[in-house]
């Protein structure tokens, strides 16, 4: 039995959904994309064209929502099933689009470059706790015109895992889909076995921008999974109450899914988000706040009531160093998300309001995720009877270590942490240099990087992909791609 947290009663879920449908009519949704508005109007919505507002009746939205697939699978480089969106399956991927990295030695936050992203990809590749990669960092030395697709290029070169990604500009979405198609063996093969999910963001409150709408339409038509990242900011760009923000989240997701399904019914799309409360002292948006996690867990429950796949941004911290606050915020919020049965949880590795990635934190977060995944397995009946059959020959002594059953079952019962987690005696710890968690993560980083192996990509595909990206880079003013090391 997978343990769960449920925050909403069935009545409350109904009320949230009813109010979301009310918002779709009053004040309506601002859709800054003429074609998207036209599609909605043709489906039965009304529009105030001058103000770019669309009023979407419930029956119009519901008809579109009916065609959203409840499940889809992401495949790895070898074409094997790797991530299951839908139901209560829980997966983790590193947080994405950080701009800085935490230098593990100087503890400076400095702008990320390609070498940093490659390191993060290699680490995420080597840790089984991460089910998917993300395009984790924006590389500062790369021209902005190709910043989004270049990140994807590095992930595709260095990883076998599925990818959570997204475009920064509308014209690059198609290019990124083509890049994925090269490795999948064509666009149709990519539709059959999707490797990546693309994040698409509405603008709070209740706005679908030109870019966001275009992305929804392009992804739907390409049949590539889209993931709505709705970001109600409680008390600033959304109602201050957690439930008020959950209603707004629902309205933004429903309107986005409606546009998406009208563009192509049956295309896969995820009910996701990255909401936050606002810190009313600092004017910041804490991703590590427990209320942020509560909004996520609540909206996930709403999405599940429709039968949609779910996503959230959790497991990140607002701390500037990988310290107690970082560990506490990351593991608390990740656990809440996991107990809510959220299919994809993005955020591990991140600090400073999602601005900074620490490769060492990614390694430490993996241990938290290991324990969280173990928690989701719950307590299982491994033997019958549960205990009564195991006392033969024990004679009131601690002889269970000698039992074959102990050897057979301990690995099923226990999550075995890496050396990052210190469970040694005080003397073992002292002999090992008296290292703290961060120092142990640095040591583990070296082990992981040493053991990393490049994925084997058919050489013609690799050549085609690299030529394509090199061509785009040249157009953006980059003479040659940075040299990729092993």
């Amino acid at each position: 039995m997978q343990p769960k947290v449920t925050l909403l009663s069935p009545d409350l879920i109904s009320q949230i959904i009813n109010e979301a449908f009310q918002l779709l009519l009053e004040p309506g949704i601002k859709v800054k994309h003429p074609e998207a508005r036209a599609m909605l109007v043709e489906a039965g919505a009304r529009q105030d064209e001058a103000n770019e507002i669309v009023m979407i009746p419930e029956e119009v939205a519901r008809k579109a929502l009916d065609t959203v697939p409840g499940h889809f699978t992401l495949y790895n480089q070898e074409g094997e099933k790797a991530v299951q969106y839908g139901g209560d399956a829980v997966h983790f991927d590193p947080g994405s689009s950080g701009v800085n990295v935490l230098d593990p030695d100087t503890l400076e936050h400095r702008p990320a470059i390609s070498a940093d992203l490659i390191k993060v990809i290699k680490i995420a590749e080597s840790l089984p706790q991460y089910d998917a990669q993300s395009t984790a960092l924006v590389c500062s030395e790369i021209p902005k015109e190709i910043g989004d697709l270049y990140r994807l290029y590095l992930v595709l070169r260095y990883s076998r895992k599925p990818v959570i990604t997204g475009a920064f500009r509308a014209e690059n979405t198609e290019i990124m889909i083509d890049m994925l198609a090269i490795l999948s063996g064509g666009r149709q093969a990519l539709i059959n076995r999707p490797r990546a999910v693309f994040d698409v963001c509405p603008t709070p409150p209740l706005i679908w921008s030109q870019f966001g709408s275009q992305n929804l339409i392009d992804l739907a038509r390409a049949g590539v999974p889209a993931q709505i990242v709705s970001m109600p900011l409680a008390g600033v760009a959304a109602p201050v109450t957690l439930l008020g923000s959950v209603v707004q989240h629902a309205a933004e997701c429903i309107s986005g899914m409606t546009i998406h399904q009208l563009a192509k019914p049956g295309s896969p799309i995820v009910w996701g988000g990255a909401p936050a409360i606002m810190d009313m002292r600092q004017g910041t948006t804490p991703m590590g706040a427990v209320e942020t996690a509560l909004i996520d867990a609540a909206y996930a429950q709403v999405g599940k009531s429709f039968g949609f796949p779910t996503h959230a941004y959790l497991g990140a911290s607002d701390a500037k160093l990988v310290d107690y606050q970082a560990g506490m915020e990351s593991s608390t919020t990740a656990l809440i998300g996991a107990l809510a049965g959220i299919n994809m949880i993005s955020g591990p590795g991140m600090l400073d309001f999602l601005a900074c990635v620490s490769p060492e934190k990614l390694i430490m977060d993996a241990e938290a995720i290991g324990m969280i995944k173990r928690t989701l397995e719950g307590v299982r009946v491994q033997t019958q009877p549960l205990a009564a059959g195991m006392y033969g020959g024990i004679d009131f002594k601690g002889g269970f270590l000698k039992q074959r059953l102990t050897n057979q079952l301990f690995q099923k019962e226990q999550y075995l942490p890496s050396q990052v987690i210190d469970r040694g005696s005080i003397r073992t710890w002292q002999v090992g240099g008296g290292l703290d968690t961060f120092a142990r993560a640095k040591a583990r980083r070296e082990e992981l990087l040493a053991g990393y192996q490049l994925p084997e990509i058919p050489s013609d595909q690799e050549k085609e992909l690299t030529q394509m990206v090199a061509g785009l880079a040249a157009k953006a003013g980059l003479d040659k791609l940075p040299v990729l090391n092993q």
Partner: protein
Amino acid sequence: MSEELFEAMAESILEGEDDEAIRLAQEALVRGIQPLDAINLGYVPGMEQIGKQYSCGEAFLPQLVLAGEAMKGALKILEPEMVKQGVGRELAGTIVLGTIAGDIHDIGKTLVGTMLTVAGFRVIDLGVDVPVISLVEKAREEKADIIGVSALLTTTMANQRDVIEALEDLGLRPGIKVMVGGAPVTRDWAEEIGADGFSEDAVGAVAIARELVAAEE
């Protein structure tokens, strides 16, 4: 008797009651109280107090924003009267504020505007997605000391440079200073484009704005 009215004005700011602040401003005019006195002896002490409370963690953003709204309400009543009399209030400075063209992020910029209003600046907030030329024209028209430009996207951040270049082309530099802010904006970036001020947050922006105005005088 004006003392009581002034106290009530300060209170209306502290409580963030814009209706009450407006009503008191109207009452002051009816009673023949100088609008400048109403501002300086009534409302400004309220703003100063809420600002202080915020700085030491006793007041929070929603209170600050509501205080700013109440202040704006009172000024709307009092300023036309001051124009008639030909008097002006003592300002910390005038700042034209906006989020740069192509960028619709509103929150940080608005917060900076509120903080500057609280600190006694005249703030002309042009909103979001503001063309460079609008910022520059407005600053010239209003004889602004500072233009504040926000950008939340790495892609729109580059346009901050255009504001400085436009001011230079029109010969308005260094008279009009430029402050930049927004999530991707760093001190290095501010230096690279030749901005005069940069802050990580709204509180810091006020200190920078004060420094820039002081340097000018």
